[in-house]
């Protein structure tokens, strides 16, 4: 082991030093902003104002966090979690049910069904007509607006269809021989076999749901129905639209509290990060499999 390291170090050239340092520097630009945010969230008011707490918190106390964990933030966090879970479950369910018939090459009308889905990838009505459709459906100020519009998604369906095409037909034939119907096959045979793709696509979609803030900007007026992203937006973005982009202007919350809010909204992503990394990287390659 030690020998190994020594050998590696001996082969360390100037070029290596440069490459390793450039990468280390890049990493620092990724870490420092987060350190800054955390440091400010943990510091007291005077050291924040005097910029004494750039990377390491001064006079540590958690009062910002006790302020931030108020009813509003608590509720929005739970709401966001519910939206992610329910929304993702529905999305995966609807898309898998659509992808399954599309993976049957013998199905009459399959080409048309595929086209029906692909068209939604190419065209969109744009913001204003979409806005009116949601309004006409009475989904404004309604929690369903977070869940229903994204229930079917062309991208997920195409990915799933490509995956299902790789499942050997013989499995299904055997089940059909035994008198099973397509519902049974889909839920009992296809779904368990599709676990890897379901995990990947659920993560893709779930992160998108968690990060979605525009839906509420467009359609939610009642602040009790805000997700964590929108509560955060209200606190951090909307409140400092001051003329100088200066954070200390016209604030209702102190800087520390705002930064604590950012930390709180980041934590859930950090918790699932190991999974994200594993499956997202895989997911990118899934895209390259085509029929």
């Amino acid at each position, binding site marked *: 082991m030690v020998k190994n390291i020594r050998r*590696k170090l001996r082969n360390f050239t100037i*070029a290596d030093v440069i*490459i*390793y340092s*450039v*990468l280390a520097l*890049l*990493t620092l630009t*990724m870490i*420092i902003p987060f350190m*800054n945010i955390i440091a*400010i969230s943990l510091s007291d008011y005077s050291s924040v104002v005097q*910029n004494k707490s*750039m990377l390491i918190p001064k006079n540590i106390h958690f009062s910002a966090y006790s302020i931030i964990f108020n009813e509003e933030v608590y509720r929005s966090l739970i709401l966001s979690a519910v939206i992610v879970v329910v929304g993702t479950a529905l999305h995966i369910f*609807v898309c898998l049910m*659509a992808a399954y*018939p599309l993976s*049957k*090459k*013998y199905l*009459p009308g399959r080409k048309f069904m595929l086209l*029906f*889905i692909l068209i939604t990838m*190419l*065209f*969109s*009505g*744009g*913001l*204003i*007509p*979409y*806005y*009116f*459709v949601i309004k006409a459906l009475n989904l404004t100020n309604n929690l369903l607006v977070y869940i229903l519009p994204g*229930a*079917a998604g062309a991208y997920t369906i195409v990915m799933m269809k490509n995956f299902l095409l790789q499942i050997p037909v013989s499995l299904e034939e055997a089940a*059909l021989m035994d*008198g099973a119907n*397509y*519902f049974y096959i889909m839920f009992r045979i296809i779904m368990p076999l599709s676990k890897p793709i379901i995990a990947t696509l659920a993560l893709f979609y779930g992160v998108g749901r968690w*990060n979605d*803030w525009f839906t509420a900007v467009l359609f939610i007026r009642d602040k009790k129905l805000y997700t964590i*992203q929108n509560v*955060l937006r209200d606190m*951090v*973005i909307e409140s400092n*639209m001051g003329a*100088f*982009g*200066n*954070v200390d202007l016209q604030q209702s919350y102190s800087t520390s509290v705002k930064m604590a*809010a950012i930390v709180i909204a*980041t934590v859930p992503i950090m918790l699932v990060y190991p999974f994200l*990394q594993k499956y*997202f*990287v895989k997911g*990118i390659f899934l895209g*390259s499999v*085509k029929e």
Partner: protein
Amino acid sequence: MRWMTLSKGKINAIKSSETVIKTPFNTKMSMMRKYWMLYLLFIPCAVFLLVFNYAPMYGVILALKEFSPRLGIFSSGWADPLFVHFKEAISNPKFLSVTLNTLYISLLRIIFGFPAPIILAVLFNEVRHNVYKRTIQAIAYLPHFLSWVILAGMVKMIFAGDGMINTVIENLGLTALPFLTQGDWFIFTIVFTNIWKTIGFSTIIYMAAIAGIDQEQYQAATIDGANRWQRIKYITTPGMGIAISINLILTLSGILDAGFDQIFNLYSPVVYEQADIIDTYVYRMGVVAGNYEFSTALGLAKSFVAFILIVLTNKIITKLGGEGVW
């Protein structure tokens, strides 16, 4: 004996699965009856797409109407002349200015943001210590997963007049820079922070291309006396060739998207003149100001150009030997 008929259908189907089905019409009908369950599975998705995707597509006729909130889109009267809102949109001086802003910001994003992950992927590939490499990759991917609301909050904090960066600048004896409040600096800030957000994760596609390069090429080149720079230049870079060209074309086809999420969360009226892009303008004119027909027309004009760009893109990618988008 239902299973028998089913499996017979299956056998026929498998026989013809790889070719286009050219069965007679009544056979087709009987097959459709046989597979009714499969069609049933498709229905929920079809309903959702019809309501949330196709209905808005039909709604674009709003651009040709004189909208009355009382009547709704469908019963409102036609505009006279029909294309008056398009004319309005195009002759509006703001149209030219937001389009130019969009193109300017997009081009800067492409010029500086496109090569960055390619260079980073090459650097990653040169790292021989796997733990070091994996740690840096894990950290560099992180910003990709955070929303622009979170990141804009951080950017506003760090780039503010009294933020971390300006504190450092002032400690160096220089004057603070108006990163968020002056047009040119604002554009610098959004281009820079966008690269920061995307650089890590965008390397994945290039890392995949590099992973596909035959390692023997490197060994052979080393034996022939190629140095590291030559190996990068003649093996690694050409190995990424197709990935680079496809990615570039895809990026170019999205040139009218200058990053709504980012700009919307970061801009303020003082930088509207330079930072207002088509998407933000459509939002403010439509949703905020209630100028529905005008902003629908503007949005439609944008999607039309975007559609042409995507079709062209797909043609070019297929010509290059890559697989098309559809």
